[in-house]
């Protein structure tokens, strides 16, 4: 039982990072019908920029204290990623707005390679130690379950950001414009919505979320690396599809579910398959679930509206 609870906590921590990144995929897909494959690499840039900022702060303002340093580093990285997200949309995707679907998709893959290469040139191929500004020493175990302060921060921050995003989309003017653009951007622009601005805003918000996810990811594992965005990016994309791409609630559900499936899958796959499979099938297990869900619900768990888009 202790093991099951611990696996659930493990899954929720990983899953909430997936969910944050998945929101970025799903928002862009919902509005543009584009899978922005460079999204995972924004997470990586977010982590590495924060690392650089924190190093500089620790060098020039050593008295700042741990949490202010982290918040300052995070803010700088969020701003850099917002600018980066806007720049990518403006230069790489906007010109292809009316091109066949394949063109922006290939461009997205190109942007992903470009970001990785630039990061490799700046930060090298080595793994960097990410400063542990929030403690990674576990607190007193609750019911035998170990959790660290940084993991608690991840759970709380992800939940807060997700609620904030839902409120933004459902309650604000910007959110209404985003929903209108997603529904039909020609009609939305006829109604006086500046769709270019709305699409740019979508990229900016998604990139900010990815930056936060990147900083949390690196804080938890203590490392940062130029290729670190690939795996979380791929998993988050899977989570978005699992939940129903284009649907905010779906991305969150998909992310958490994927984290749980992976964690519990790795923990119990051997017993469930009577020793036939083992934890080297951890990733496959997640994709089997994805396959089964897509067979019975081709638009994902919560994806209704997407059917007529695709």
């Amino acid at each position: 039982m202790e093991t099951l609870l611990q696996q659930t906590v493990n899954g929720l921590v990983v899953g909430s990072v997936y969910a944050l990144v998945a929101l970025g995929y799903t928002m862009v897909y919902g509005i543009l019908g584009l899978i922005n494959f460079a999204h995972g690499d924004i997470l990586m840039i977010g982590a590495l920029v924060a690392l650089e900022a924190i190093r500089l702060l620790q060098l020039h303002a050593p008295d700042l204290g741990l949490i202010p340093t982290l918040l300052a580093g995070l803010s700088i990285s969020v701003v850099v990623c917002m600018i980066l997200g806007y720049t990518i949309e403006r230069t790489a995707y906007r010109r292809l707005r009316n091109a066949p679907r394949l063109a922006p998709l290939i461009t997205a893959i190109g942007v992903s390679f470009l970001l990785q290469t630039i990061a490799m040139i700046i930060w090298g191929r080595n793994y960097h130690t990410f400063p542990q500004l929030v403690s990674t020493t576990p607190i007193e175990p609750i019911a035998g379950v170990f959790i660290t302060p940084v993991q608690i921060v991840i759970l709380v921050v992800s939940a807060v950001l997700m609620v904030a995003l839902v409120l933004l989309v459902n309650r604000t003017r910007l959110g209404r414009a985003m929903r209108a653009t997603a529904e039909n951007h020609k009609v939305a622009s006829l109604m006086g919505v500046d769709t270019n601005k709305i699409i740019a805003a979508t990229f900016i918000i998604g990139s900010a979320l990815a930056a936060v996810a990147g900083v949390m990811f690196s804080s938890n594992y203590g490392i940062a690396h130029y290729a670190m965005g690939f795996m979380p990016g791929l998993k988050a994309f899977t989570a978005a599809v699992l939940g129903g791409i284009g649907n905010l609630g779906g991305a969150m559900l998909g992310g958490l579910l994927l984290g749980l499936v992976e964690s519990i899958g790795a923990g119990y796959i051997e017993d469930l398959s009577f020793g036939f499979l083992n934890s080297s099938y951890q990733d496959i297990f997640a994709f089997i679930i994805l396959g089964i869900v897509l067979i019975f619900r081709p638009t994902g768990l919560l994806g209704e509206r997407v059917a007529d888009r695709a």
Partner: protein
Amino acid sequence: MKLALAGVLVAGSSVSLAQTVVKIGFAGPLTGPIAHVGKDEQYGAQLALDDANAKGVTIGGQKIRFELQAEDDQADPRTATTVAQRLADAGVKGVVGHVTSGASIPASRIYEQSGIPAITPSSTSPKLTQQKFRTTYRVIANDLQQGAAMARFATEVLKAKRIAVIDDRTAYGQGLADALVDSLKKLGTPPVGREFTTDKATDFAAILTKLKAAQPDAVFYGGMDAQGAPLLKQMKQLGIGAKYLGGDGACTAEMIKIAGAAMSSDVYCTQAGIPMDKMPGGKEFNERFKKRFGVSVQLYAPYSYDAATALIEAMKAAGSTDPAKYLPQLQKVSFKGVTGNIAFDASGDSREGGVTLYQFNAGKWEARP
């Protein structure tokens, strides 16, 4: 001593007309980030040839003088093949090298085709000798021997009874872990858990939680430092108090840097080779090395010395410097080298294959007795 040495050299050159010069090749990185390792091994081979020349070697009735032809492979697989071909074309009778497995493996094919024996002082990949080339030899323990040694250390020195094993499913990590598991079974302490990850993973919480239920007193990870360090951290985060054991992929400065505060005296790793002060001829070798080259032994120079000596011993035994004639004798050499007894098994691996256990202590890796 310097004067005496100069005297020998002058005497050597003055009678060189009556001697046959035999070229021995050396290949390793002489430029780039690990140039110091390459240079170290080059000096080791050079010292062996100097010693043989000073003593005077007669093979097949001819007085022989050995010369070293050193080439720079930059630890790069492609450069290694070019360099190997250059050595073969220059007519070397044997090669000491290469330094890294990545260079040794592609180069070994060229030596095999040219029929030139090559003994590596420091490449530990099992793949090198698994190619079944008759010209490929090594004087250092390979990764499989390392896994077996770790099993002995874990059970005999560390007294671990419940060992859990994780590997990253790469040729290196899996090879190491499988060798360890085989030996553990033979020693009567089969692993209490066996889990898998990848060399791109960062989250190990799920597999560690599963292993935790088996209450291991030691966890072995077969893989590199970039995954090993986060794995060690996550062990602490999950409250697993077991000892951490790693192979040479974790025996690095990088491991200490990335794992940071998670490092403790409960962290161990193994590395092929034995430290200088544990070698039978280590102390004396280091002194002579310093005198000759003005620098201390870095790493594998004694292995390089023994590799060059093995070539010379085989030539003596065969009474010929022709690779085709002395190759069968190389298989049979057995002598007491600087690093220990030098003898090869059927695949060309070192029979003895010394491995050292390191323990983390006060910010660095420390060799355990």
